[in-house]
């Protein structure tokens, strides 16, 4: 393989791994902040134990998220130097702003929260976890605005052989960026909600720490329910926006080859990219795609054949990832609605608890699938319409990247296994004993 392919793999590995750990921290930080606020308001010791129990899981996730995040920032320079030179004027400044505004705040106040239980007043201590939650979510906003610019570059002009900034506000407030932000954030909150529900279900199934985990489950459920429902609606609006801005991505998401009015949505397809057709199509809903994308069944949707071959994204991967994401999205809405209807007898519904427990991995899969749709669907562009991925790679030797990629895979596997082991260990052990009893 050449340096390009290896660099792409390396970036994919690094992003996917980073994105296993970060989404949980986005939502969990808010839940912990709510728990601690309840503790400060009511003085109920159980809420303090809740904040501490979930806080430990947060810390482990955060640690892995941080160290794998640095890797990503550095990789733009190490592996994508041509890209960095071309877009640094805009993209680099957004990353720098993210570090200055958000990441400092998050890292500094997380340490205050961890070490400050005895040194700060309860209110100030609680404020520090709110700052962590705020900063984590603010950090995501900047990062996703940077990504949105790669999907839909705005506020720039081509000058001196690169993209130069002309309108800062246009870059950092572009509506498509907020779509991406809310979509990703809702996904992350669903993940956090399901994680909390699943872990709680584990203990409730064993009839241990029942009061403690009933409270947890309730909070996770409210969170997951709100954002699962919101995601269905938002996902639709988001998709319609993609149809306008990135039509070739939409065509790949739906494996639609021929431009047509009244375009159908097909539930299941096996695409055959070589022959520009689908081998198997099953469950065609006529007009559905036109309706969803352009709010009218008669609207014309452009098919893949009308894009030059070298400007089409990989179809099968984009299509499958999109189907997986959407199916899981509806599943989350369904499960949370059922759980909500049974919210008062959850502890006595072992089947539902088991379902919640085994659902823990699903939002992770949904988020990774969503990321595939976004990034693979953007190909062959690294910056939509401006720069192709193949023109962005550093002039480095393939052997260098081969070695570092191998090292990443080994190190991240070990790191992931260790983090998983520690979280599982902590979850199984359950909360710390009530003060005065242990």
């Amino acid at each position: 393989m050449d340096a390009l392919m290896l660099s792409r793999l390396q970036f994919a590995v690094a992003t996917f791994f980073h994105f296993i750990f970060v989404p949980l921290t986005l939502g969990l930080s808010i839940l912990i902040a709510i728990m601690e606020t309840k503790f400060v308001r009511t003085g109920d010791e159980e809420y303090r134990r809740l904040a501490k129990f979930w806080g430990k899981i947060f810390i482990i996730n955060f640690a892995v998220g941080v160290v794998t995040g640095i890797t990503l920032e550095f990789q733009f320079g190490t592996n994508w130097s041509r890209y960095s030179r071309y877009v640094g004027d805009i993209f680099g400044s957004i990353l720098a702003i993210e570090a200055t505004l958000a990441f400092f705040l998050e890292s500094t106040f997380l340490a205050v929260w961890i070490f400050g239980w005895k040194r700060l007043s309860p209110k100030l201590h609680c404020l520090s976890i709110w700052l962590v939650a705020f900063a984590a979510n603010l950090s995501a906003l900047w990062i996703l605005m940077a990504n949105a610019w790669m999907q839909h570059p705005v506020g720039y002009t081509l000058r001196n052989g690169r993209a130069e900034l002309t309108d800062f506000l246009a870059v950092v407030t572009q509506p498509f960026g907020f779509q991406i932000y809310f979509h990703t954030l809702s996904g992350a909150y669903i993940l956090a909600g399901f994680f909390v529900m699943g872990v709680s279900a584990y203990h409730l199934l064993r009839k241990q720490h029942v009061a403690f985990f009933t409270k947890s489950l309730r909070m996770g459920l409210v969170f997951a329910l709100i954002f699962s429902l919101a995601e269905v609606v938002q996902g639709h609006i988001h998709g319609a926006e993609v149809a306008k801005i990135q039509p070739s991505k939409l065509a790949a998401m739906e494996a639609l080859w021929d431009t047509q009015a009244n375009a159908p949505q097909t539930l299941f397809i096996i695409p055959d990219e070589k022959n520009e057709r689908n081998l198997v199509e099953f469950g065609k809903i006529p007009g559905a795609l036109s309706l969803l994308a352009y709010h009218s069944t008669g609207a014309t949707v452009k098919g893949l054949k009308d894009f030059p071959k070298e400007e089409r994204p990989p179809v099968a991967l984009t299509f499958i990832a999109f189907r997986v994401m959407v199916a899981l999205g509806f599943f989350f809405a369904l499960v949370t609605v059922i759980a909500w209807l049974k919210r008062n007898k959850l502890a006595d519904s072992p089947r539902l608890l088991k379902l919640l427990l085994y659902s823990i991995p699903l939002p992770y899969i949904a988020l990774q699938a969503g990321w595939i749709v976004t990034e693979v669907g953007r190909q062959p562009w690294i910056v939509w319409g401006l720069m192709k991925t193949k023109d962005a790679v550093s002039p480095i030797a393939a052997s260098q990247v081969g070695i570092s990629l191998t090292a990443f895979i080994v190190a991240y596997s070990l790191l992931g296994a260790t983090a998983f082991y520690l979280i599982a260990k902590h979850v199984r052990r359950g909360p710390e004993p009530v003060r005065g009893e242990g």
Partner: protein
Amino acid sequence: MLETIWFLLWGVLWAVYFMLDGFDLGLGTLMPVVAKTDTERRLVYHVMGPFWDGNEVWLITAGGVTFAAFPTTYATMFSGLYSALMLILFALIVRGVSFAFRDEVNSPRWKCVWDTCLVVGSFLPALLLGVAFANIFRGLPIDQEGIYQGTLFTLLNPYGLAGGILFVLLFLVHGALWLAVKSSGDLHDRAAKLLPKLWAALLVMAVIFLLTTRRATFLYDNYLANPVLFLILAVTVAALVMIRVYIAKGSWWRAWFASCVTIVGTVLFGVVGLYPKLLPSSIDPAFSLTAFNSSSSPLTLKIMLAVALTFVPIVIAYQAWVHHVFRHKSGEEDLEHEEGY
């Protein structure tokens, strides 16, 4: 003008990063020498605990600012120093998680693994960042296209290695002083006993480095052209001497501050000497990347300047507050509170 301001800000951000992360990189490297028991090792982690992550964000910011203000330099520097940077990255990865993972399992072997990660993960970045900066001072084989024409081993020349050792010693002194400030009992005594020796080694290395800099680099050109700039060097050397004076008096905080000045002074000495070059080319000076030929557009530089001048002081303010909150010495009672990771 904007380019010059950003050049200085770039140097200051790197200097602040080394000043702050320097003490925990140094102390992490020093841990096996100063901490003999598990409790002592936990205390070493504990005196770094509330600070190390906030310190490391300065590296991300320094990197991010290089990307934002001087994208062409960022591109050449990071892709050219590929292997060195990857080593630093892996070191920082294993080091970062060792803080969170170490005390999660109560087994000596488990702890030993993470202690090793801390030591190696602290030593390697200290050494390699020193090697990288000394090589930047010396000039990198950058061609006309701004492409680095060397390997990892190109960097391991005598001057580069001298820079690496200098950084390691600077950080060892800095870290030992931090431990002397933040601990009591055996830990404090060992740090105090070690410091005169570490300082002597640092002095020798600093002299060697200053002398070889004259032969290996063009850094002194700016100073000879503007002799008033020699003040930077004078302050740095004076601070280095004051470290020893305060060590002898047992004024640990003051010695640590003198060490801060020494580190910042050392970095600024190099950066001011470099101006306006960010990456001098050893192939042909004309191929060098400078603050002027590698910078972002004026608009980006202006916006970033507004952001930096607004938010960096805020960051400094709340990080100073954190130092105030955790100003106490760490003792065994802190470990029992279940505070910390």
